[in-house]
């Protein structure tokens, strides 16, 4: 009987893991996930000490207290953070079980002895060998185990760079052309629950997400900002000198960026994009579509405002969205056609008859040249049909079971299991919103399962 790890009524992967076609994306695909740095050294056939639940005293399993009885097991298979274990002494798979490799149920061989705990064989096989010492020496000598600091390093990699109370600038979900002052209210697995300064409304995003920015960012790059008067005055004063830093300010070193400001003001790099240029971009309001888009304004340090041409006409500019020129979500004209992706045409155009050359002529505009885009494709390791956990970015408090439906270079099409294609999300392979199988239970986040389909009553 295994420990119940989760009290959030989460989906449990266990029923899926042993299916022959189950294929999880390995932890080594997720550089932002706990344990990523150590996972190259985790493998099948490793020996570990794991909670023995086949013993007299099972109270700890029921109550969730710290496990007190352990036995040695071999890692038979790995799916994300989940490992299929076989207690030493069992000859077949009849008693194999899945555990989360990073949970407190699992330790390096030798961990029990350092705590004075004897290893206790499972009751089912306790009389199988007369001398367990000889058996263990034979089974363990020369085998691999986890590094002794594994659990501590995993714990360290859980820690967020942020803390509750820090203030930052967050894309306004009701007006995506501006950022709004917000503060960190809760942190679960490096996902931040942020509240806008002027409402009780909150928003979840990962701490590496490109929709959050340090204090002073909007003023520095020339982006629209909504903040209290006092904050605006501090920013205004900072325009002439340095922005005064307050104790609760989230500062730039906390944020993940794929470029540095120094590249622009020390090396004199300039933004090659020009207002009016056309391109293709992932729709920030509907991540399942890649659309015809226009550069509406060029900001500083490589940022620009783009508008999706399929949106209804809006002269206010409230639907412009800020992308950096190094964003993996923008593409040159022709990218979709070259990769067999359906391009969402501009408002008023037909999906079947839209042609870029005609459109450029009609709008008297230039395509953004291919060399302006940064399309290096890392050896990301994702493959079609791999399973994972993914935040629903249209309702980012939800992390759901999902599958890699398609891969185009570094772009992944993520399908939420049980949901139609229209809910798919195009995400970059380095997106901080995708996680290995077992991540939710590891960090204490609820995992949403597929929708429950009502069976017709016969």
């Amino acid at each position, binding site marked *: 009987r295994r420990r119940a790890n989760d009290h959030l009524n989460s989906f449990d992967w266990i029923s899926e893991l042993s299916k022959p076609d189950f294929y999880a994306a390995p932890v080594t695909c997720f*550089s932002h996930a706990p344990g990523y740095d*150590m996972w*190259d*050294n985790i493998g099948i056939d490793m020996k570990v000490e794991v909670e023995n639940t086949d013993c007299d005293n099972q109270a700890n399993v029921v109550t969730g207290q710290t496990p007190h009885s352990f036995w040695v097991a071999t890692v038979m298979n790995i799916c994300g953070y989940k490992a299929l274990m076989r207690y030493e002494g069992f000859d077949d798979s009849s008693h194999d079980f899945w555990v989360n490799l990073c949970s407190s149920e699992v330790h390096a061989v030798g961990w029990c*002895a350092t705590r004075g705990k004897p290893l206790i064989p499972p009751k089912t096989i306790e009389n199988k060998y007369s001398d367990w010492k000889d058996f263990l020496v034979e089974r363990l000598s*020369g085998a691999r185990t986890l590094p002794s600091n594994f659990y501590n390093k995993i714990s360290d990699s859980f820690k967020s760079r942020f803390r509750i109370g820090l203030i930052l600038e967050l894309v306004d979900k009701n007006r995506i052309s501006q950022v709004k002052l917000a503060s960190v209210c809760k942190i679960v697995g490096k996902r931040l629950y942020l509240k806008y300064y002027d409402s009780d409304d909150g928003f979840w995003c990962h701490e590496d997400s490109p929709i959050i920015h340090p204090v002073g960012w909007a003023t520095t790059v020339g982006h629209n900002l909504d903040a209290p008067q006092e904050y605006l005055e501090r920013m205004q004063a900072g325009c002439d000198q340095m922005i005064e830093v307050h104790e609760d300010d989230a500062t730039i070193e906390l944020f993940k960026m794929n470029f540095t400001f120094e590249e622009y003001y020390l090396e004199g790099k300039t933004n090659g994009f020009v207002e009016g240029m056309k391109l293709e971009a992932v729709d920030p309001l509907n991540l399942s579509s890649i659309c015809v888009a226009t550069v509406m304004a060029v900001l500083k340090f490589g940022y620009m405002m783009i508008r999706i041409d399929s949106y209804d006409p809006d002269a206010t500019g409230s639907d412009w969205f800020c992308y950096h020129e190094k964003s993996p979500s923008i593409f040159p004209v022709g990218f979709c056609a070259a990769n067999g992706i359906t391009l969402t045409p501009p408002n008023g155009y037909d999906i079947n008859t839209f042609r870029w050359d005609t459109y450029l002529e009609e709008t008297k505009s230039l395509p953004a040249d291919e060399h302006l885009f940064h399309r290096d494709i890392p050896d990301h390791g994702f493959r079609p049909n791999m399973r994972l956990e993914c935040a629903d970015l249209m309702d980012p408090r939800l992390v759901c079971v999902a599958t890699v439906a398609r891969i185009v270079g570094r772009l992944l099409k993520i399908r939420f299991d049980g949901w139609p294609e229209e809910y798919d999300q195009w995400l970059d392979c380095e997106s901080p919103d995708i996680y290995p199988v077992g991540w939710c239970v590891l960090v204490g986040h609820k995992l949403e399962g597929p929708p429950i389909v009502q069976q017709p009553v016969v």
Partner: protein
Amino acid sequence: QAPSKPRRWEQKQVQIKTMEGEFSVTMWASGGSD
């Protein structure tokens, strides 16, 4: 692209304690990336 991570396996003496007594075995453990 993620930087390549060192892969270092070290032989180590691991202490085992059972109800019958304590002994040690030689195993391999990775030094991780520290």
